[in-house]
């Protein structure tokens, strides 16, 4: 096949040597070539946030991000947030606070919350709302998601000894 480009992707700490057409998105490569299906294919135009992954610690819409651009960057997907099969605090808070219904938006929200709390460990309610404005959830009405993010921030603060 013509047009293939060799790239190296570092995903959840693993190195993947791949040949990809330059127009393939990071979402497509993650799901179809690497077999990581946690990031979801939904609107495919950056409106719903279900495809979010972390690139160098910041949440991006992987449906709008070309795989070739991710070369040499540190990519982390929702699958990479667990530690040895145990949920991280943000994932735990989403489960415990009832923030998950159908769950299709959940990987995106969890990834975006990771990004938010990295930058702003104690966000106000308004800061949470504005940080999540690129994420749609049709099931929950968002209340329990806000509560989960607040809970995660509180728990992480406690764990830091703050």
């Amino acid at each position, binding site marked *: 096949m013509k047009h293939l480009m060799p790239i190296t992707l570092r995903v959840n700490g693993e190195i993947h040597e791949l040949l990809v057409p330059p127009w393939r998105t990071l979402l497509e490569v993650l799901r179809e070539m690497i077999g990581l299906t946690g990031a*979801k294919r939904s609107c495919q135009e950056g409106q719903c946030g279900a495809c979010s992954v972390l690139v160098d610690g910041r949440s991006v819409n992987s449906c709008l991000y070309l795989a070739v651009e991710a070369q040499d960057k540190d990519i982390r997907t929702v699958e990479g947030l667990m530690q040895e099969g145990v949920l991280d605090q943000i994932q735990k808070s989403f489960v415990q606070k009832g923030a998950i219904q159908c*769950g299709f938006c959940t990987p995106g929200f969890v990834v975006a919350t990771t990004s938010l709390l990295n930058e702003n460990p104690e966000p106000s309610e308004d800061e949470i709302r504005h940080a999540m404005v690129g994420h749609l959830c049709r099931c929950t*009405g968002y209340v329990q998601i806000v509560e989960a993010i607040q809970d995660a921030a509180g728990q992480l603060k406690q764990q830091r000894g703050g």
Partner: protein
Amino acid sequence: MNSPVRNTFDVVGQPTPKKDGIPKACGQAEYADDLSMPGMLHGKLLRCPHAHARIVRIDTTRAKALPGVRAVITGADFPGVRYGNLPQTRDYLPLALDVVRYIGEEVAAVAAVDEDTAEEALDLIDVEYEPLPAVFDPDEAMKPGAPLVHDKVANNISAKTAFEFGKVDEAFTRADYVREDVYETQPVKQGMLEPHACIGLWDATGKVSLWSCKMSPYVVWRQLAMGLGLELRNVRVVQTVVGGGFSGGKQEAMPMDFCAVMLSKKTGRPVKIVHTMDEVLTIGHMRHPMKIWLRTATDKSGRILAQHCKMVANGGAYSSIGGFSMYLAGAMLNIPYRIPNLRYEAYRVYTNNGFCGALRGHTNTQICFARDSQLELIAVDLGIDPIDIRHRNALQPGDVTANGFRIGTFAFDECIDRVVQLSGWREKRGRLPKYRGIGFGCGSHISGARLMGHSASAAEIRIQEDGTVHLTTGSTDVGQGADTVLSMIAAEVLGVSVDDVRYIRVDSDSTPVDPGTFGSRVTFFTGNAVKRAAEDARRQLAMIAAERLGANPDDLVFRNREIVNRHDDRQRISLKEAVRWGAFQTGRLIISHGTYAAGDEKIDFRTGHGNLSPAYNPSACAVEVEVDPDTGQVKIVGFWGADDSGFPINPMGVKGQVIGATVMSFGHALFETLIRIDGKVMNPSFRDYKMPLMTDIPRLANFRHDNVITFEPEGPFGAKEAGQGAGTGVIAALANAIYDATGARLNCLPMSPDRILFALRQKEESAGAPSEVAAE
């Protein structure tokens, strides 16, 4: 009849995280698009660009010649059998045969080695169309001489319903006050984030399997068999994790499902098809847009004497569940207010638009918007407090409605009072600054419907040798929490924890048959079936344990994974030990089942009379808004709701349901609409079809929903419906709040900024002239 609260339970009533929360939180839940199979091909569907056309010729030669294409199919590859939801309205085909009736209808399908190739092949299919005259507006479509969407259907009347209860004309004659208004609602989409997706396999034995995100897999199972001309035994439907449903395409077999299996037959490979969001928003499946004419008679005190409702629904090109929708809208006029005399006439009209069907709150949402908007105006006209007029007309426990609904638990008055208190209604109403307002709205819903076809649910339980519970039902978790609620019910009865219950997704080869997930039926119908299955298992276990312990089985209680003699707690045996002894030494396996059919009452759909549901629930809400008079933007400042969901089995889940339903209604009220010009959807993308975001909801401190707890005797552990009723009164509450804030009355949805500005302008122009809206 509103029985006192009872909670002496170990499991039910406890806020419980969703059972599948962990796999969903870490990306391990397998949705249909996450699955792949060895040798799998990818399918795409060719859609028609005309609103109405005859297919003259389809030439697939060029598409088939494209490298990587493995098969191309058209309508001619299917037996030509029409399928559908109701026997009298079977008008779907897997692919169009001779005529296409709306833009986006499926005419051909391709399987290829990847999606890009399949997509490219679509462009190489040559279809010659002969465009036909089209009609988009239901009023136009009913006129003599209008183009017929379906040749044999006169005046494009897809379905009609009419019924009358009591003495309507007499009531209008003796009324002190009569008012009539017209309300219009818009096409809105389910808006689930997971697009429809499936994998079809036609194996060498002639058996067809479909893996798909279906809410009602057994409906799909029957429809696949029907449209493929197969026996049921040759069809298998396997439910994948469902990424949101809210009715629509996930209730039915869709063209993509038929095409996936037919392309598999042609290629000998599994074939996956996934809709793009553009396709999801372009095809049918949406809420019926309605024009609702409502005339109401009251006495001086605002007590409703009669209502007369005429409704015309724009059904689109096909029937879906629309025949039932027309009955349901009229039936929903009977709750939550006392309407002693009622006349209802409804027409569902075929047009060359995407077809309509059920969506959360199925027709009730539209009816509640009209009725509670009008009730507010009646209160204004008669100088009655808006709370008083609702109390005065509230249905009470023990009532029998004009159409035969028997009302059991129904804490409507309590819901109204709770909202008045939570919202600070008395302090706010009439005292808010200009352009700020508060409005009230009420709704209600059913806990499942008694249907003419398949109505009953079933559950099967096996107790494993480690004492854990293997629970199968034909009901689906679609995110609403059925997995957790049903497991909690089994756990409560058997004295185990929720984690000890393994809840199995539907596979038509191994789970009990079930009507599906709709009409708020799962907790009630399937919940009762699960409870009975668990009780049966408990009886079997008690017999074994009684033998082992030398005790009377009636004295045994099940708690903490143990069976204990209530009179002598030294006499105890672990569940695991009892199961193992029964299985290993006496050859008794614990396998049980339970069913629930909601009694043998039936609805007479010709007269509209009958007790549709085993239980009914009311809801009330108040919403506070701020309207920007320069932009017409509405900001929702606060929302306070209450509903009577009976006894909430999982309060955490109920909270998610009622708030989810509420916020969905925010979108439907204020901005969501499918914009269509001559049948073409102009906003088939989440960029342009706007749904509520986190910034569109009030701050947490001003967003509250309470359950007024009743104990419904017919419900499992006293439970009732939770997922739909709470959203039904929200749109009217917003309309009433905007009216309170601005004096402008919006009878047309959505209440978008342009319409609000227009209404404000109109109000300014007519200022000075006496007007019902100049009440500021």
